[in-house]
């Protein structure tokens, strides 16, 4: 009898715990899971949150007067570039870009298309650079990485490209204007410049992603980081250069 009387509150506690866990799981799924449900709308909110209030101008992210510049050479199809963008970039933006210590230049490259006989990298690059005319390049680049498909699979279809453009979501962003600009030759010089810059500063052995850390305004490479290295590799290099 005494045991039964003790069991009732225990069952109530277990039931309450189950209800709380279900509520937390549902909240987590609503917060995160839904962003993965559609290839066209994924992670719009989290990317907008990461970039919110951070100045963008063309290919630049961050304060133009920041002490250091990180040059990112990446290909939209490259899986390691995507891994870096998803896992490392948010911390760098939070710690250094948002605080005005670092600006990042996006130097998109198109060389995986040659390996796979696709046009995916070029199509995604064109949209990103076209979005740069409206100072929304970084939203597009991060959406492309967040929605990245398997390299060489031809996933960057017209619907995918339009979906990315529509997912930018900023009031000041004209989706149709960006899509139209992506098809013109206006973006070609920027693709060529990135390619030449990579060949000059990194050399023919370039792989993606590759990062250069320079003092803003100087073309001297202070540090080169090849590959999607852990966050600590970047923070150590940046902290060291900031102290000098």
């Amino acid at each position, binding site marked *: 009898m005494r045991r039964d009387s*003790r069991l009732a*509150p*225990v069952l109530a*506690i*277990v039931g*309450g*715990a*189950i209800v*709380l*866990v279900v509520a*937390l*799981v549902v*909240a*987590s799924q609503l*917060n*995160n*899971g839904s*962003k*993965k449900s559609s290839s066209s709308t994924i*992670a719009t909110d*989290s990317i907008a*949150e990461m970039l919110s209030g951070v100045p963008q101008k063309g290919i630049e992210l961050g304060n133009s007067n920041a002490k250091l510049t990180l040059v990112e050479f990446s290909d939209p199809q490259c899986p390691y570039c995507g*891994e870096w963008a*998803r*896992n*490392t970039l*948010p*911390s760098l933006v*939070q*710690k250094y870009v948002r605080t005005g210590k670092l600006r990042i230049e996006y130097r998109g490259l198109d060389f995986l298309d040659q390996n796979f006989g696709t046009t995916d990298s070029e199509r995604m690059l064109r949209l990103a650079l076209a979005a740069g005319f409206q100072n929304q390049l970084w939203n597009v680049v991060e959406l492309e990485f967040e929605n990245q498909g398997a390299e060489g699979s031809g996933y960057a279809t017209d619907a995918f490209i339009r979906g990315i453009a529509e997912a930018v979501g900023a009031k000041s962003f004209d989706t149709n204007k960006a899509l139209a600009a992506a098809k013109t030759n206006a973006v070609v010089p920027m693709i060529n410049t990135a390619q030449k810059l990579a060949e000059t500063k990194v050399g023919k052995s370039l792989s993606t992603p590759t990062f250069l850390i320079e003092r803003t305004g100087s073309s001297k490479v202070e540090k080169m980081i090849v590959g999607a290295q*852990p*966050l*600590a590799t970047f*923070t150590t290099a940046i902290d060291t250069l900031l102290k000098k």
Partner: protein
Amino acid sequence: MTERLLRWAVAALALIGAGIAGYLTYTHFKGSPPVCLTSGCEVVQNSRWSKLFGIPVALLGLLTYLSIIASTLIRHPLAKQAGAMLALVALGFNAYLLYIQEHEIGRYCTWCISNEIVSLILAPVAVAWLLSSGDSNQRAAS
């Protein structure tokens, strides 16, 4: 096993959990990757699943474990019940986070796994503590 011993066991396990969650919370706000046996910690820590409506999951875990510790210090049956319920919630949510690591992120964070093991041990100990007769129950009965 005495109520006192079980209470100490709950407090000790929650302290370990708080230590792990505290470390992950610290690295989250510092923006540095946790010291890790694999590369999974950084990936999991920076994934979109590491936050719940903008609040780091590690911070939620830390607050949960600290609440459990507090429940062992307050000699009242309600505190005991709250502590046991939080331990069960921690177990359930940690199981969900393990599923997310496996199926959504594809990487494992050793600190998170350690925390999941702690909650797996803590939950039955907390329930045993709840069922045990002790001075707090006696006080409530009197």
